[in-house]
């Protein structure tokens, strides 16, 4: 396994602390490296976008370990988050872990999901969404502030993720691949079937490529890979 980026320079009062879900994503992306090598060769390097980067642990991981994960360091990475605290945290984490062999980090942007990005430019999208079922999707003014925004996903925990699934056909390039985390209460099998049968505008090819065991009070989490071909 590849070293996890350090986030010890951050405090986690307003930022989601890297947790089981973040680490499952890192593990899964590591296991995906043979796939990433063939899909994104150096002669046609990918633009990687992480939605909701929080601490930046995932964006930093992809940037720093580009050579291992993709087989070259010509990837470019970009991150977004709606929280006012996350872009700066992401920048700091990238800086703290970057090496001479890293890919090229283009920046952290404060925005809602991928708003402001051109259509069809994203080759690889990664999202560890707010997925806990809650009454409403918060806006940062709730009792839990921006941590509430990081965790609460509204009905079925799917309100934010559904917006991303609807947007995939617009965000992703023809060869684009999305890695999205779903928990059991998101009804992942049902969501996967909807993606496959065209309810999100494209008959997506969907595969569960990573799963956590049930441990430490966490429900089972899965990483789902979505692509056109």
């Amino acid at each position: 396994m590849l070293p996890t980026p350090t986030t010890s320079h951050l405090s986690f009062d307003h930022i989601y602390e890297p947790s089981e879900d973040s680490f499952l994503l890192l593990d899964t992306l590591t296991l995906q490296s043979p796939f990433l090598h063939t899909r994104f060769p150096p002669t046609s390097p990918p633009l990687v976008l992480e939605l909701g980067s929080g601490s930046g642990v995932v964006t930093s991981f992809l940037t720093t370990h580009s050579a291992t994960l993709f087989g070259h360091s010509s990837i470019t990475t970009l991150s977004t988050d709606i929280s006012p605290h996350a872009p700066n945290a992401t920048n700091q984490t990238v800086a703290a872990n970057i090496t001479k062999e890293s890919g090229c980090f283009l920046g952290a942007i404060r925005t809602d999901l991928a708003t402001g990005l051109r259509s069809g430019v994203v080759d690889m999208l990664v999202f560890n969404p707010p997925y806990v079922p809650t009454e409403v999707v918060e806006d940062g003014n709730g009792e839990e502030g921006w941590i509430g925004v990081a965790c609460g996903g509204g009905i079925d925990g799917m309100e934010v993720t559904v917006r991303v699934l609807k947007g995939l056909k617009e965000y992703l390039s023809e060869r684009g691949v999305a890695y999205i985390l779903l928990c059991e209460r998101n009804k992942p099998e049902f969501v996967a079937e909807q993606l496959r049968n065209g309810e999100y505008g494209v008959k997506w090819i969907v595969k569960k490529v990573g799963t956590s065991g049930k441990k430490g009070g966490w429900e089972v989490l899965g990483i789902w890979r979505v692509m056109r071909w």
Partner: protein
Amino acid sequence: MTAKPPFIPPPHFTLHPTNLPLPPTTPPPKMKILTTNYLTCALRACKSHPSSFPLHFRDAELQQDSLPFNAAFIANILPRIDWPALLTTATELGFTGLPAEKPDLLATAEMEADEGVGRELHRILLETQVVEGKLVCGNCGHEYAIHQGIANFLLPGHLV
């Protein structure tokens, strides 16, 4: 809402050391110029309008660093750059050393040459960061602020 369960790191992660960070003086990275190759106006109505891309820099404050030249990166990234857009952006920021047409795949030797296009691209794409300023939509005039190297594309409520 449901409380977050206590954090229990998976065993194989705690077993591994974290990366040796660079000297703590490494400043946080800021927005790179190439980012504008992928950005457009956040307003739906503008997105399909040609004048919303690229966004235009206003009052940009740049930071210039010195990084080792990476010929492979420049050669690899070149095919996927939208050249006319980069040319517009670079010119607005005062970089006038780029040719009007995208150069053919650059040979490494050619790039290693001191004053070639490769070096200029390296300077623009990798060594330059945007610290402060605005990105302005050529269609609707909306301004997106860049502060401390972070662009903000959140729209005020009445525009969403």
